[in-house]
């Protein structure tokens, strides 16, 4: 049933639809501003280092603000892996210096230690680093992983 049949020529709504109907956008603008402030505060603009992390479908998110990161890069041919105290960048240290770094981190309140090791690093070397970390009382060890290809697709 068309509106012309219902109201005839004097359709009061037809006149209102064409004259000065405005939508109150105040609430939408308020929500938009709140979302904008939230994302501006929570987002970080740092770029991710190029590390070939092993992928895992089942993982947990560890807040890096309250954790200490150790990066282990696979060395060149016939060279040992490199240990960096930081997320992709940092001082390169030897294996026995990891424990002191972890001790300082735990003393500073960062008990979560995230090891971001490349997938080509040997398991034995990872095990040695892990032993240095768990030797510090209170340290919690996490292994950094990457997204699976299915997770990376939008």
């Amino acid at each position, binding site marked *: 049933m068309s509106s012309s049949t219902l109201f005839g020529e004097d359709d009061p709504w037809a006149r209102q639809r064409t004259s000065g109907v405005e939508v109150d956008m105040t609430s939408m603008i308020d929500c938009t501003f709140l979302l904008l402030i939230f994302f501006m505060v929570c987002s970080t603009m740092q770029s991710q280092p190029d590390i070939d992390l092993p992928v895992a479908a089942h993982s947990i*998110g560890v807040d890096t603000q309250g954790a200490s990161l150790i990066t282990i890069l696979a060395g060149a041919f016939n060279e040992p892996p490199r240990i960096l105290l930081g997320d992709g960048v940092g001082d390169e240290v030897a294996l026995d210096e990891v424990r002191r770094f972890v001790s300082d981190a735990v003393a500073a309140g960062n008990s979560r230690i995230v090891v971001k090791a490349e997938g080509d690093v040997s*398991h034995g070397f990872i095990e040695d680093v892990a032993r240095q970390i768990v030797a510090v009382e209170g340290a919690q060890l996490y292994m950094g992983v990457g997204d699976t290809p299915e997770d990376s697709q939008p």
Partner: protein
Amino acid sequence: MSISTRKIGALVPCAICGAEVLVPAEDDFTPARTAAPPPEVVFATPTEPVSEPPVEPPPWREPLPSAPQNQPPDEPSTLANADKNAAAIDEDFTPLLIKSSRFAEEELDLTAMVDVVFQLLIFFMVTASFSLQKSIEVPTPDQPRQGVSRALQPLEELQDVAILVSVDERNVVSVDDEPLADLSQLADVLSDRMRRDRKSELIVTAARNAAHRTVISVIDAANEVGMQRIRLGTAKLGAD
């Protein structure tokens, strides 16, 4: 009763009597606080004929007691009609409402600002990273102990209660000494073993030269099938 400032100077029908009246400007419209309208206010239309009969006040309105009855004799008769019109509507049509309606009509155009805010919002939503590092909890190796405190459990003893997964130096994964052709089958094999043997514990032993990627894949498969406990063995295979 109020009216938009856009109607100033226009002829509008009176909401009460229906007669056409001229909407005065706010500066021109200064009626007295009392019921008597000022004589300088003119509500009559310029095209209105002089001989038009006066507009009757609404029947529910009482005659204004304080209305001035002494018209100046030199005033035109149009003013008399205007006085009656003004007296009929002045109780609701106050200048204060006209002022508020003027401010209500002055609105800022927020369209450009909303567009910019939406652009910023989309940018931050797309580029946001919440400082979270995807991680998995891995079983920590025991510290090497010497003397009587060192308690080792042989794998044969653990095989009765746990599923043994080994990774050799060529990254070949074996489940209970049965090598797997493809690592993607590990989750299905573990699920079958859990259901068939009623085991919910996993022990991973990897060679020192095995790739860290393979060990993580084994632990991820164990998490996928819901293995309750994952332990990391330190058996030295291959080169060691």
